[in-house]
């Protein structure tokens, strides 16, 4: 299956999963919603152009927003992490050249620690920005911090589970092949 088709399926699956499974879960605590859909952006291939990455992320966010009914709320953090993604990938795997040998970021292509850091940082940025816009008019700082950390924790758990369940086979590409 080509990378393009695979990502279209992933896009639809992530949106449906987020809207019809995760958003339907009664809140674990007063205000924690489990988020997983932004993993789609983290899983996009290395080879995608920076502009393309921004546009795809915007499309993902705005699609989710129209299902949930809050245009712009999820699109803004998606675009932010899409913009920052190339920088962090460069920092994390500059020496190994993995972006040439593997198709997309994963534990195998980046190594456990760099990939973990990559997921952690973007999960945190996404939730921080999302909750910041959502809570701007409420302004209770303790709630804000609590919500960001708790949602980040739940999302990391979900990402860990999905990495274990859907093990992505990564082919090692060489020039000789």
């Amino acid at each position: 299956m080509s990378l393009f088709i695979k990502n279209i399926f992933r896009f639809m699956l992530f949106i449906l999963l987020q809207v019809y499974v995760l958003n339907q879960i009664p809140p674990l605590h007063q205000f924690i919603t489990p988020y997983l859909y932004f993993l789609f952006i983290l899983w996009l291939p290395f080879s995608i152009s920076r502009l393309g990455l921004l546009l795809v992320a915007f499309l993902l966010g705005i699609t989710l927003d129209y299902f949930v009914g809050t245009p712009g709320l999820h699109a803004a953090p998606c675009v932010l992490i899409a913009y920052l993604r190339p920088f962090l990938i460069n920092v994390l795997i500059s020496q190994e050249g993995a972006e040439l040998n593997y198709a997309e970021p994963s534990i195998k292509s980046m190594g456990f620690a760099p990939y973990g850091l990559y997921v952690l940082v973007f999960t945190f940025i996404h939730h921080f920005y999302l909750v910041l816009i959502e809570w701007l008019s409420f302004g209770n700082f303790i709630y804000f911090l609590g919500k960001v950390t708790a949602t980040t924790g739940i999302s990391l758990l979900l990402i860990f589970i999905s990495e274990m369940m859907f093990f992505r086979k990564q082919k090692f590409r060489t020039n000789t092949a």
Partner: protein
Amino acid sequence: MRNIFIFIRRYFTFLCFITLQIICIVFLVNFNTTHEAVFAGIANEVTGSVNTEFNKVQNYFHLRENNRLLLDENTRLKNMLGINFESPDTTKQAIIDSIYRDTTGRQRKFIWLPAKVVNNSVSSQLNYITLHRGSAQGIKKDMAVVGPQGTVGVVIDVSENYSKVMSMLHQNSIVSAMLKKNTISGKINWTGEDPRYVTLNGIPKTTALKKGDTVVTSQYSSTFPPNIMVGTIEAVKKDPANNYFIIKVKTATDFYTLEYVNVVENAQLTEQRKLEQAPVKNQ
């Protein structure tokens, strides 16, 4: 000029990023103040049809609970039937003139329409509900939405077959309410913390209150019919800054399990609004 092009080319991705962010924020701000996003009408129709399919499956899980609710409501309505009220006949002669009673010139003010909930959220700060009934079936903006247990929200956007409701659990939602026992009125809004509770403001500190007192919609509300259940008082706090209580009210409606609601139209709303908005002449 050349320098500008070089600048744009160099920071093209960054500029795109900034543009997209601005678009997002503009959507968000516009939508939250006026509730009229650019594509809201179209998008409602598309996502609404997906939601309906999903809802067909989801409904099976709530059948038992819904049956109980319908039964409760039926019992309550049957209790209100005229048949149940009978007083001993003290007059010599009973005169019932049904024709006269029908033509006293009473005008209908509220029209109730049933609707099915196809999408519902409680976990966000800005909660919306989508109903499978739209302008083609008689839904208009600003109509009140009432569930089997109590108030739910107000219609804010309508497409042909779907309508979008601002739930009572929304930071912009204001419902005019009063205490049932002494008809002192105040305003219901939501602090965004817990979907089971809303806040009642504007009740003066001289009022005697008890936990468990009933709060209903007031007759000053132009969208909601009066005396619809809102909830019961859970806790009372005094606001040190002014002369009013801050009252925590447990909502009568369980927003987690909303499936069927009634949409209420105030047939005299336009007339009332027109009179209220007209400038006062002899002042």
